[in-house]
């Protein structure tokens, strides 16, 4: 995993999205989800490109099903962008780098 990507679960999730100074893109994923694995290198590229402007955090839905449920995640990969602790943008399904960058641009 790239140095710019953190892993969150349970309590560290709330801590991370509340205390972050920049928006946090949370990747709801699991090891058994093919498209999620395909998304990982795309997120690493974005994390490197946007270091300092954006945090990326991975949340394993097997380990934290309660958080997935709290945000009505019913399909993975799902990416949710949190700004000031609140969800502001959501991507469902595997997306390319260009689509993701365009989608988050207005919040950075």
């Amino acid at each position, binding site marked *: 995993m790239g140095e710019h990507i953190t892993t969150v679960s349970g309590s560290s999730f709330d801590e991370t999205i509340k205390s972050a100074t920049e928006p946090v893109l949370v990747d709801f994923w699991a090891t058994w989800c093919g498209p999620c694995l395909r998304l990982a290198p795309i997120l690493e590229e974005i994390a490197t490109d946007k270091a300092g402007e954006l945090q990326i955090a991975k949340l394993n839905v097997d380990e934290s099903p309660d958080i997935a449920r709290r945000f009505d995640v*019913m*399909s993975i990969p799902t990416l949710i962008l949190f700004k000031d602790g609140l969800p502001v943008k959501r991507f469902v399904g595997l997306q*390319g780098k260009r689509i993701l960058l365009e989608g988050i641009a207005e919040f950075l």
Partner: protein
Amino acid sequence: MTAKRNVVIIGSGPAGLTAAVYTARANLEPVVLEGEPSSTSDQPGGQLMLTTEVENFPGFPEGIMGPDLMTRMRSQAERFGADIRTQKASRVDLTVHPFEIWVDGPDAPEPTFRADSVIVATGAQSLMLGLPNEARLLGFGVSTCATCDGFFFRDRDIAVIGGGDSAMEEAIFLTKFARTVRIIHRRDSLRASHIMAERAQANEKIRFIWNSTVSDVIGKTSVERLEVQNLQSGKTSTLEVTGLFVAIGHRPNTDLFKGQLDLGPDGYLRTQPGSSRTNIDGVFACGDVQDSIYRQAITAAGSGCMAAIDTERWLEAFHHTPTSH
């Protein structure tokens, strides 16, 4: 700047990646346009990226996960030097030679690649019912990927629509999580293979709703219930489920080639019998985009090999024709 290439392969499922392994080993330095991932169009790695266990690909007696198999094929192509790009072919011009291929912006004045040969391996994608609420609730109870989304339906009642092998596979997989799985099928018998149909019928969590289709998906922010229509009586009824998995078949991805490559009456690309040749010299097709009959990972891989060998021979003859340069 337009780059000149021997061969551009469009698509990265078993057909495209097998063609890449063979053309790369033949030192043709192939470019593979694997597609730009998106939930509605491209699926790099192809349909196996959305499956679980593949039990019938020779060489894996214990079975292998679909995404694993595709990752291995991709690594194998890269090992021999295939240039794999995570980009979408947005436009092709096959009426000129070298062929012209645009990536990303289809309106750019110059193509991204000029290629002496093209291998089309764009595959097929899942058909949807085409209901407005189905599109609205995609990812919120409506799914095309049981392996990705089954987890979220633990102890729920859900439905699968379709009567083929992929519908049976999804339904059986989903019984690991769901309380009950209803299979809704428009006929009174299954199209699935005997082994898959038997497994589904023997599963006590699975019930069948025959001669029926889904006429509406109901729910505010996620699926709450379905309106199911019996196709014989025309009557509709309500089915209380919170998930709908759509597995009603596939359509070949031929839009990029409309008006240039010949299609059969079934909409699949037409290749000459016993070869991968299309109606255009130097353009070859393999995998599900040209196969309405077998549609297996192994037949796709086999036809990818055929396309690579056909391409290699065609390029050799082409470069030895005095008038070609």
